[in-house]
């Protein structure tokens, strides 16, 4: 299968700050390729370089066979892009937004009529095409933005945290659409910080501090996690978290609702340490059980290994 995206040592600096640091990966056609990482990890900067919105400081990126630095026009013709912020025009109607992007992408005549109807149907806005876009609920706006991004049937689709702020049901149906695009051959590159979204991706690039720290299928990433995870059920998770931080043999503790996940060195020893620590802090552990790692645990582990999160 031909590579839709090829990235080699891609780097972007802003002054002294290196936002993306020598990142390399390839993406196959029809793949859903996810970027996972905390804020400031370099996901958005990477996507902006791949969409020719930002020039790389060094390194190479090819999209649909064209170098983003030397052929930005050719690259842009072949991709659809949805930015983090909702960025259709709120004072234009649904139809006017569709017409604008059709004009910009050169979708005309009979093809335009067909694509317009298709986008309206995809967004579920066929009856509301004359409403101002700004008046729509966020879920509909996102679907319309997606529709406008794929109006010209691009072989590549770039989505930068497309579902932030959207309710879980809308998010779910949004991902059904993305699955559909990928199934019909569209390559999708998407950044997210929702773990359940990351599960939808065929492959995940885990990023932290501008570096690519892991790249594999979600299942493989989970298997690769060597450190055991203990689920600690407590009553007061924030207090318990404080109590366990820095405990010997406990590498990382994170909060999951009212439970804690502790990444540990040795489960048996850690279980005793945790119970003792909690008791000392006046917090009783309801249960301490070893569990299979979730993607979030994987994420936490990789971030831990690569030097922790960037503050802020």
């Amino acid at each position, binding site marked *: 299968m031909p590579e839709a995206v090829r990235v080699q040592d891609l780097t972007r600096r802003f002054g002294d700050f290196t936002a993306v640091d020598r990142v390399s990966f390839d993406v196959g056609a029809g793949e859903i390729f996810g970027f996972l990482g905390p804020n400031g990890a370099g996901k958005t900067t990477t996507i*902006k370089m791949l*969409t*020719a*919105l*930002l*020039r790389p400081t060094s390194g190479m990126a090819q999209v649909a066979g064209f170098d983003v630095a030397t052929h930005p*026009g050719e690259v*842009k*013709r072949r*991709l659809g*892009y949805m*930015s983090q*912020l*909702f*960025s*259709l*025009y709120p*004072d*234009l109607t649904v139809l*006017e937004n569709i*017409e*604008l*992007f*059709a*004009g*910009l*992408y*050169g979708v*005309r005549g009979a093809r335009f009529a067909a694509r317009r109807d298709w986008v309206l149907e995809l967004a579920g806005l066929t009856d509301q095409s004359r409403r101002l876009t700004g008046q729509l609920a966020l879920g509909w706006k996102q679907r319309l933005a997606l529709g406008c991004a794929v109006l010209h049937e691009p072989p590549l689709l770039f989505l930068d945290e497309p579902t932030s702020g959207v309710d879980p049901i809308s998010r779910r149906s949004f991902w059904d659409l993305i699955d559909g695009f990928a199934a019909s051959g569209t390559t999708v590159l998407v950044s997210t910080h929702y773990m359940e979204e990351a599960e939808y991706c065929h492959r995940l690039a885990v990023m932290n501090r501008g570096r690519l720290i892991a790249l594999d299928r979600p299942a493989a990433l989970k298997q690769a996690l060597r450190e055991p995870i203990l689920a600690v059920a407590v009553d007061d998770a924030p207090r318990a978290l404080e109590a366990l931080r820095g405990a010997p043999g406990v590498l990382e503790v994170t909060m999951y609702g009212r439970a804690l996940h502790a990444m540990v060195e040795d489960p048996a020893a850690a279980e005793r340490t945790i119970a003792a620590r909690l008791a000392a802090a006046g917090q009783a552990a309801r249960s301490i059980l070893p569990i299979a790692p979730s993607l979030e645990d994987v994420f936490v582990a990789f971030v831990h290994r690569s030097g922790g999160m960037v503050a802020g």
Partner: protein
Amino acid sequence: MNRARLLAVARKEATHLRRDRRSLLLAFLLPVFLIIFFGFAITLDIKHIRLAVLDQSRTESSRALIQAFPSSGYFDLVAWPEDGAAVDALLESGRVKAVLVIGPDFARDLASGRGAPVQLLLDGADANTATIAQNYASAIVARYGADVQLRGRSLALPVEAESRVWYNETLASRNMIVPGLVAVIMSIIAALLTAPTIAREWERGTMEQLAATPVGRAEVVLGKLLPYVGIGLFDVGLAIAAGLGLLHVPFRGSMLLLAALTLLFLVGTLGLGMFISATVKGQVLATQIAIQTTYLPAMLLSGFIFSIPAMPWALRLITRIIPARYYVTVTKGIFLKGVGAEVLWIEAVAMVLFATAGLGLAVRAFRKELE
């Protein structure tokens, strides 16, 4: 450059304008307001100066002199005070701007040929009006004196200057104002409508979406410019129509030449507004800078209100780089003098340069790339 993409941007921009009440008000109501404001309210001519007369002579001669004031058209007789105290009260309250005092011996002095002085009291609080009123009054009195001396006979003076003012025979200031106003209106559109457009898109994040499409820089800039050029031409047409129809400003030159040079000036001014917008990337700041660089020079340094030859040399030098100055020369020349390209070619070259520079700067400054 792709025409379909350019038109798609132009259409979107026109729709923004249509849906934005502030823009519509600025585009269509402000020019009308300015025309009325400058055309009617602020005229630099002084007419209907309120005059009071204290006539202590009460003779046929004094009444003839008094009558000469209202019939000149410059004075309105509004009060007849009986004594000096009443005169003071009238001037103090501002009810009158000038008082003519004719002494009790006026008729006798006149008949004796000794010379009959009359007194004119002026409210100097408004120095400009006072000076002009003084000049008018002196002229009226001098003329009356000459009539009396000749007693109906005519006398050929050895030397007489017969002055005639060309191009603006009545010296009406509105004739000067309407041509200059066109330049001011255009710079307002540039500063208040065009300057925020690109900055607004950066602020709202829509520019990022636009930048990710294959649309080119020139397509965005020209597409955005197009609706404003339309509004600009409409406003200029409105100003010219109001000038000719309501204010009776003469129009002696070629409409076609005016239209062509106006279009060039418009493109230059709007391009400058867009250049500022693309450079600054903040709506408020872009608007402020545009006001400083287009509106204020058009108002103050173009020869619209203040005469350029009367400026100190440093300011005169600065006006040479103010495009509005050349444009005001164009409008005045075409409106009042009826001159053509043979006289206005320097200005025409200036307009071409300005339009090219405005557009070039706008396209250059507009980066599709994010920073």
